[in-house]
């Protein structure tokens, strides 16, 4: 996640206002290595056999046939099982806890609460966002006398079976003294509001600001100032695989191994070592198959620390905990939950001059890893794809008695895009302009483009994507047909969003935990190739893309390449998979490492073939062979020679392996245009999607099939936010949407047919020219759908509705509009 303030961050410039853009731009320009020094992928491999092709996913055979191994599929000898007692209260003091009965129950090995664990495991950590005066409460892995949200772990039972553990949880008697809970973040800021954390002065965890440009001027010059309040509701990420942890501590070897469903094994290893006060060398983290994360596994969780501590207590027996869906909904990080008050300075021709955005982020009861950072991304991305000169976001992060929020697909950018794309439509409605024209009027057109918030967009051609989408959707014809439908009294709406987002996180100076990525490419004596990546795919298909890149660079087949990830025991170091960074940053590392292996192989081949200096300089690979002059060696023969050690070229060492740490010079900024048509049922408020068209630009496409997959899934989740999903807590802090029978993730039947196309605007930030596409669909779709619904309701005078646009909300708005004079 992008770091947002502090000494070297990108946003210091933003914060420092007027000078910011230039400095950010300079740093971006400086960071991109001079073209002369860089070997671009498509220069090295002008006619790739795999990259750019719709290659089927390598991982699918095992995943689809159920042959992959997730945490729950791992069964270690002598394994014990853990079940967790969780708070039923949003806020309560633990008066007493009786565990004797549970301890004596059959099969139970032990029952543990804070006092048994606290000496072994410290607080749940956060990546410090560099926000001054950030208030961080005590966040133990098991509640220390007080519980602060429904689902907070209060005690753990270790038993011979999961059933015995679960039965014993029911035997623990806790006496709670309920305390007043704060649920509404705005009310939480009132001076007399109950406090979530008694040790803190109030519920304000942090304030932050980013601004640039001359706001006063903008608001003075504006023809009109439009005010709007917008909400990005609280969402539950709902990865298909819930979380799960196995931990084992081998006393003799002094080695802790933690198998966990995570997106960031290396960061987790570092953090666990801190929590457990074990040197990192004694901690190994393994992420087996990970069944989705969407940011919810981009974290360090209480349970990961807890299981590690329990493993030490029952060493050397391994302990296993598998999260139930209900736990997942209550106690895995939630997403979004921001309220924004917008002031928009706009001209009658549709030009936006400036935007003020006062944001309250409901962060829940604690800080998780990136809790504070996510909403700052909203502020940073507030300019969207537009060139209005002035913008300001003030942000208040507020504690409430709910599950903490953190990254969820898009992480800060869906919120920003929702705001800015609603703004474009609000402006269009205000001056009765076509929303397409308002966007055209405001598009950024010169790149690198400096935003008033201090970012430097790498490359882009927003109008091209928009034009292609308009054509794809037959926008003109559609508008004409809409007019006709309106005449018939039907509520048909067309909405669009022309988003830009921030990806391939990122340059280390803009990241809280390092923004580089590592890769090792290693060739065995028999010529089989291993790629070790520090990224940690959890559904994206990186195994396929990295094999495509490696196979193309080395001139071999994809099935000769085995991609390994997720194990700190064999991957040298890494940052992880999030922020649509894996291909752009991790893929580049793979490319660079493979290129180095290739260079060495060429030298080894030349030496082994006894090539002349001139021939050695022109070794080529053709048909899987290394050619020096008229003589050739196969890939495997070269690999063997490198290991055999008899013909080591000058200046080289034996072996065939390269590791590369790629540090990107900037973020990348993918963009696109999404268009949606809906019809609203006047009598029931139901929204039906009649068509969906998306043109996305993620730079150079590595694998169109995977891009489509990412876009489709992303749109599904964005559609979920627009129409269905909302984590609902009642006024006492009870989570009412605690199962999938009440929390509405979109299902196959909710999905419209998606018409997806691409434009290609390569980035210069990395030698692949690739930007990232993991979140684009989520970011682009939500505002397109909401804009379509509001457009449908426009004849009734409705200008805005908060998400999710559930039938009843729409129905009420229609009724209210009908009743209005």
């Amino acid at each position, binding site marked *: 996640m992008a770091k947002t303030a502090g000494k070297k961050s990108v946003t210091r410039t933003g914060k420092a206002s007027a000078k910011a853009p230039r400095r950010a731009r300079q740093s971006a320009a400086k960071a991109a290595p001079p073209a002369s020094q860089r070997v671009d992928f498509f220069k090295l491999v002008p006619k790739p056999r795999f990259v750019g092709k719709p290659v089927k996913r390598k991982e699918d055979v095992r995943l689809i046939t159920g042959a992959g191994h997730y945490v729950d599929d791992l069964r270690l000898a002598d394994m014990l099982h853990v079940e967790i007692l969780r708070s039923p209260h949003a806020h309560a003091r633990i008066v007493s806890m009786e565990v004797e009965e549970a301890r004596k129950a059959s099969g139970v090995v032990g029952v543990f609460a804070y006092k048994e664990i606290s000496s072994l495991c410290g607080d749940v950590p956060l990546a410090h966002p560099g926000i001054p005066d950030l208030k961080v409460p005590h966040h133990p892995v098991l509640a220390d006398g007080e519980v602060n949200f429904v689902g907070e772990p209060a005690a753990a039972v270790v038993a011979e079976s999961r059933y015995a553990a679960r039965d014993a949880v029911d035997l623990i008697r806790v006496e709670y003294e309920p305390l007043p809970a704060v649920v509404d973040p705005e009310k939480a800021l009132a001076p007399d509001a109950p406090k979530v954390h008694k040790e803190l002065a109030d519920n304000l965890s942090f304030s932050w600001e980013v601004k640039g440009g001359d706001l006063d001027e903008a608001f003075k010059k504006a023809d009109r100032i439009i005010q709007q309040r917008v909400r990005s509701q609280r969402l539950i990420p709902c990865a298909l695989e819930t979380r799960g942890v196995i931990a084992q501590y081998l006393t003799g070897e002094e080695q802790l191994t933690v198998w966990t469903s995570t997106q960031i094994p290396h960061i987790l290893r570092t953090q666990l070592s801190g929590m457990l006060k074990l040197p990192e060398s004694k901690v190994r983290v393994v992420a087996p198959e990970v069944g989705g994360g969407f940011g919810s596994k981009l974290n360090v969780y209480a349970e990961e620390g807890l299981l590690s501590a329990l493993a030490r207590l029952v060493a050397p027996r391994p302990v296993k905990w598998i999260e139930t869906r209900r736990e997942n909904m209550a106690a895995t990080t939630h997403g979004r939950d921001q309220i924004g008050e917008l002031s928009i300075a706009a001209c009658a021709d549709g030009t936006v001059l400036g935007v003020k955005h006062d944001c309250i982020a409901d962060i829940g009861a604690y800080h998780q890893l990136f809790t504070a950072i996510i909403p700052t991304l909203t502020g940073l991305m507030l300019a969207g794809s537009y060139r209005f000169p002035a913008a300001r976001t003030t942000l208040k992060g507020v504690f409430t008695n709910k599950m903490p929020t953190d990254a969820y697909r898009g992480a800060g950018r869906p919120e920003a895009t929702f705001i800015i794309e609603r703004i474009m439509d609000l402006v269009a409605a205000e001056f009765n302009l076509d929303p397409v024209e308002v966007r055209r009027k405001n598009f950024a057109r010169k790149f690198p483009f400096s935003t008033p918030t201090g970012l430097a967009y790498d490359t882009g051609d927003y109008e091209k994507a928009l034009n292609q989408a308009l054509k794809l959707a037959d926008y003109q014809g559609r508008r004409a047909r809409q007019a006709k439908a309106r005449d018939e009294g039907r509520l048909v709406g067309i909405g669009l969003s022309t988003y830009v987002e921030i990806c391939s996180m990122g340059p280390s100076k803009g990241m809280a935990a390092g923004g580089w990525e590592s890769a090792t490419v290693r060739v065995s004596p028999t010529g089989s190739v291993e790629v070790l990546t520090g990224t940690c795919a959890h559904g994206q298909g990186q195994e396929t893309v990295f094999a495509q890149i490696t196979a193309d660079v080395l001139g071999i087949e994809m099935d000769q390449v085995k991609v390994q990830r997720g194990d700190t025991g064999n991957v040298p170091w890494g940052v992880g998979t999030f922020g649509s960074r894996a291909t752009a940053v991790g893929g580049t590392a793979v490319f660079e490492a493979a290129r180095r292996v290739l260079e060495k192989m060429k030298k080894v081949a030349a030496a082994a073939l006894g090539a002349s200096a001139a021939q050695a300089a022109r070794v080529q690979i053709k048909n899987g062979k290394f050619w020096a002059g008229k003589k050739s060696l196969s890939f495997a023969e070269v690999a063997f020679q490198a290991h055999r050690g008899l013909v080591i070229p000058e200046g080289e060492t034996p072996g065939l392996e390269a590791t590369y740490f790629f540090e990107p010079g900037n973020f990348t900024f993918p963009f696109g245009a999404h268009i949606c048509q809906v019809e609203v049922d006047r009598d029931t408020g139901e929204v039906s999607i009649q068509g969906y068209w998306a043109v996305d630009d993620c730079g150079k496409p590595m694998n169109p099939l995977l891009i489509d997959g990412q876009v489709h899934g992303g749109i599904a989740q964005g559609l979920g936010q627009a129409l269905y999903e909302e984590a609902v807590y009642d006024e006492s802090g009870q989570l009412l949407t605690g199962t999938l*029978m009440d929390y509405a993730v979109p299902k196959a039947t*909710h999905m419209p047919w998606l018409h997806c196309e691409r434009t290609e605007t390569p980035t210069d930030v990395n030698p692949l020219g690739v930007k990232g596409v993991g979140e684009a669909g989520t970011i682009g779709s939500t505002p397109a759908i909401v804009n379509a619904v509001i457009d449908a309701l426009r004849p009734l005078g409705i200008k805005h509705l908060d998400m999710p646009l559930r039938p009843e909300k729409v129905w009420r708005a229609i009724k209210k509009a009908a009743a209005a004079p």
Partner: protein
Amino acid sequence: MIPVAFDYHRPRTLEEAVDILRQYGDEAKVLAGGHSLIPALKLRLAAPKVVVDISRLPGLSEVRRSGSGLSIGAGVTHHQLMVDPLIAKLCPLIARTAPEIGDVQVRNLGTLVGSICHADPAADWPAPLLALEAQVVIVGPEGERTLHINEFIEGMLTTRLAGHEIVREVVIPRAYPASCAYKKIRQSASGFAIAGVAVQLEKKNRKCSSIAIGVTGVAQRAFRARLIEKSLQGAELDEKTIAQAARQVTEEVNDFLSDLHASAAYRAALAQVLVQRAVLAALAA
């Protein structure tokens, strides 16, 4: 899934099943499709000592002719009701309701009888079954008894069924014509009905000679919209008449349900809209 431990029985005959239930009474639970019971077991909201699986009892998974109507066995799944030719012929309303339930997996395992035994106020089946005057055939240690569906379902999650009884079948006493429809608004998470309306009507010379309207999802239990039926009986069914009659739905119920998915006012409005739409659709069918 980590329910409380239970014993699992899979009797081979209905008699054997009844016998097990007689032994354990309220401690036992019948398992049919399991799509309501198993979630409750997993959450430990239900913790029976004994589970009696009747899903494979011989003869229960059939739709049969029964007099001039038909009988739906306790093992018959929602999916079977979608595709069964006898149902399509004799009782098309059932065939039109079945595809509206849940999703493919739910329809493949869940049963009509299981649904009415569970008596979820948001379930779909009670609406058409009320409209069709269905009879519920119950067997127990003391023998057999039959209850009208309206008596069988008492209220939210409660029926007249005793702990040691099993529903053997649901009987639709006669054949019905194709002029029928089921319309529902789904709760977007579960797919259950926020409101559902089943209409079965019969026409004579453009006039409605008989009409039955079952409404589900909007109140503690499903009900027949008697006032509306009365207004439409014998009337010529044009849009205006139907719309006017549908308005009376608010008088049919004292308390419309209100929950996080839909308020009472919204449910009342939906019921009205769906009555109109279902009657129109039944006319057109």
